[in-house]
C-alpha cells in the first residue's frame, strides 16, 4: 500500500476534516441551526476515509443516515453539506433531506438512505447495471452491524453473490444499533463469518486504523473490479458520540467509551507520523488551520444560503423533462 508521506498526511487531513466538521455540527445543533435527527460519525472516520481512498471517482457509494463523513470523503463539498443541514436551497438536496439525506449525482453519492439496510439492494442494482453494461465500476455500500439482522441485507447478499456482481459491502460494526448491543441483535456475532456463508470473500478489519482500512479496501476493490464478485469487509469501530442527539446513552458505560477513545484513529495516525518524523507541530497547526477555515467557510456558505420557495413543494415529485 501507499505509505509515502503526502499520502498519509492526506489520510490524516481527511479524518481531521470530518472530525472538525462534525464537532461544528454538534454545536450548531445546540444552537438549533441544525434540526431533526443528527447522527455523528465521530470515532469512525478511519472507515470512510480508508475505503474512499481505494475508490475511483466513478465508483458509486450508498450510505446511511450517518453519512457526513462518507460524503466528505467521496468529494462532496463541505459547503453544500452544511447548507443541507441548515435546510437551505444551496444544500446537496435543496434542503429537503437534511443530515440524513445527502445526495450528489456528480460524485455518484446515492445518499443518505435512512431505512436501515434499504441501501443494500440499491447498491446491488447499481452493480447489476455496471455488470450488464460491461463497465468496470464498483458500487460500495456502507451499513451498520445492526442492519445485518434485516431481511433486505440477506436478500441483497444472496443476489450479489449469486450473480457475481461488483459490490463492496462495508459493515461498520460499532457494536451498537442505537441501544442494542451486537450480541443482543445477532445470534452469530462473527460478522465476516456470517457474510462468508453467502459465498462472498469476507474478512474483519481494524476500523480504528486508517492504514489497515485502506489496505483491506484496496485489496477488496481490486478483487471486485477484477470480477471476483462481491466482497464484504467488517470494520471494527466505535462511535464516540450518542446514536443521535436524542440518545440518553443508558446502554453503555463510560469506561467502555473511554477505552475506545484511547484508540481514536486521528491521534493514532498523528503519533505514527510523528514517530517517523514525517510531520511537525507546524504541519499539524497548518492542517488544523486549513480545516478550520474550510469549516468556517462551509458555515458561512450555509448561513448565506436561501430558503426554497414553498411554491416548489411539489417540484421534482416527478421529473421535469423526459430523460430518454
Amino acid at each position, binding site marked *: 500500500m501507499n505509505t509515502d508521506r503526502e499520502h498519509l498526511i492526506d489520510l490524516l487531513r481527511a479524518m481531521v476534516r470530518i472530525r472538525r466538521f462534525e464537532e461544528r455540527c454538534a454545536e450548531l445543533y445546540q444552537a438549533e441551526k441544525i434540526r*431533526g435527527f443528527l447522527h455523528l460519525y465521530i470515532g469512525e472516520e478511519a472507515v470512510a476515509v480508508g475505503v474512499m481512498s481505494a475508490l475511483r471517482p466513478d465508483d458509486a457509494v450508498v450510505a446511511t443516515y450517518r453519512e457526513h463523513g462518507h460524503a466528505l470523503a467521496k468529494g462532496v463539498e463541505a459547503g453544500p453539506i452544511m447548507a443541507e443541514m441548515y435546510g*437551505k436551497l444551496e444544500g446537496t438536496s435543496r434542503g*429537503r433531506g*437534511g443530515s440524513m439525506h445527502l445526495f450528489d449525482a456528480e460524485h455518484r453519492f446515492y445518499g443518505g438512505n435512512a431505512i436501515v439496510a434499504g441501501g443494500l439492494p440499491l447498491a446491488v442494482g447499481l452493480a447489476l447495471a455496471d455488470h450488464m453494461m460491461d463497465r468496470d465500476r464498483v458500487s460500495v455500500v456502507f451499513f451498520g452491524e445492526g442492519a445485518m*439482522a434485516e431481511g433486505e441485507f440477506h436478500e441483497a447478499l444472496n443476489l450479489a453473490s449469486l450473480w457475481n456482481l461488483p459490490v463492496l459491502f462495508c459493515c461498520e460494526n460499532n457494536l451498537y*444499533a*442505537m*441501544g442494542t448491543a451486537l450480541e443482543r441483535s445477532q445470534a452469530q456475532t462473527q460478522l465476516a463469518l456470517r457474510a462468508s456463508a453467502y459465498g462472498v470473500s469476507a474478512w474483519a478489519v481494524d476500523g480504528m486504523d486508517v492504514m489497515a482500512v485502506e489496505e483491506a479496501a484496496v485489496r477488496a476493490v481490486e478483487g471486485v473490479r477484477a470480477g471476483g464478485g462481491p466482497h464484504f469487509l467488517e470494520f471494527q469501530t466505535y462511535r464516540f458520540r450518542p446514536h443521535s442527539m436524542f440518545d440518553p446513552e443508558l446502554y453503555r458505560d463510560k469506561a467502555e467509551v473511554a477505552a475506545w477513545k484511547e484508540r481514536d484513529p486521528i491521534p493514532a495516525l498523528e503519533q505514527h507520523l510523528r514517530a517517523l518524523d514525517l510531520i511537525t507541530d507546524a504541519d499539524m497547526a497548518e492542517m488544523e488551520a486549513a480545516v478550520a477555515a474550510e469549516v468556517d467557510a462551509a458555515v458561512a456558505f450555509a448561513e448565506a444560503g436561501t430558503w426554497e420557495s414553498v411554491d416548489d*413543494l*411539489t417540484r421534482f415529485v416527478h421529473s421535469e423533462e423526459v430523460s430518454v
Partner: protein
Amino acid sequence: MTTTTDVRTLTYREAVREAIRHAMQTDERVFLMGEDIGMYGGCYAVSKGLLDEFGPERIRDTPLSEAGFVGAGIGAALGGMRPIVELMTINFSLLALDQIVNTAALYLHMSGGQFNVPVVIRMPTGAGRQVAAQHSHSFESWYANVPGLKVASPATIEDARWMLWTALEDPDPVVIFEHVGLYAMSGELGNDAGPTPLDGAAVRRSGSDVTIVTYGGNVPKALSAADSLADDGISAEVLDLRMLRPLDTGSILYSVSRTHRLVVVDEAWKSVSVAAEVIASVAEHALWELDAPPARVCTVEAPIPYAQHMEEAALPQPAGIVRAVKSVLGR
C-alpha cells in the same frame, strides 16, 4: 363538574406508558416487544423505565427485523400471549405489512374461524419534527382498507391511556397509531376514567355551522382552528374519528345532518385517503344534507421535506383549516 382531586395532569407519552404498565401488571400474558424499547428507553421514550420494572423477557428488545418480530408477535398471540408489538415508526411498518396483512388480518377468516390473532401493534406516525421523507409519513389509510384489522388513532390523553386496554381485550389484531406530535401534549385525566371503546367517533367540540372531521395529530389543530373560527362568529363542530376502521359513519352523518357543511382534515396525502372515504360515505348516505361541496385539508402530495418552512407548508395547519371552512361557508 370535577374538582382538582378528581383529575390529574399527565402527558400523552405518560398516558401510553401507564397503559402499558397497567396491562402488564394485570395480565402476565401481556408483553412489549420492539426495537430499542428496553435498554435504550424507547425511541420516543414511551417505554422508559419499564425494563427495570418488568425485566428483559417482558420488555423484549428486538433486532432490526420488522417482519420477523411482528410475525413473531402474531405467532405469540396465536400461542396464547397478548403481545404489544411496537414499530419504531409507521415508515418502517412497510417492512412488516406482509405479516400484518397476509397473516394477522387473514388468519381468522381464512381458517374458518379457528385462529384469532389477539395482537396489538403500536407505532408512531406523522410529521412535524423535521425528520424528512423517510420518517414522516402517514399510511394509516392503507391499514384502514384491510378487513380483519381494527385501526385506532388515539388523539386525547384519555384514549392514549385507555384504548390500549380495550385493544388488548379484543380477540383480533388491533393497530394503534400514535402521532409523534402528541407525545408531549399534556392534559387532564379524570381519575374515574376507564376503558374507551374501539368504535365510535367523539365530538371534541360541538358546533352548528360546519363539521370538521379529523383524527390523531390533527385534532388539536382542528380545535385551534375552531377557536379562531369562533372569533369570527363561526361555530365549528370537531369530530375526532378515534377509529379509522371501523369508521363511525353514523356519527359523521349525524353531525353533517345538523351542520350541513363538511371539512375533513387528514395528514395523509389527499388521494385515496381516509378523508376521501369520509366524503364518499357522506355523498352516498347524506348527499341532500350538504349545503355546500365538502372540502379536504390534507398534506401536499409530495414527500415531506426537512426544511422547517417547507414541512410546515406541506402539512395541514390551523390557518389552512380556517380558510377551508370559510370557503365551504362561502365567507
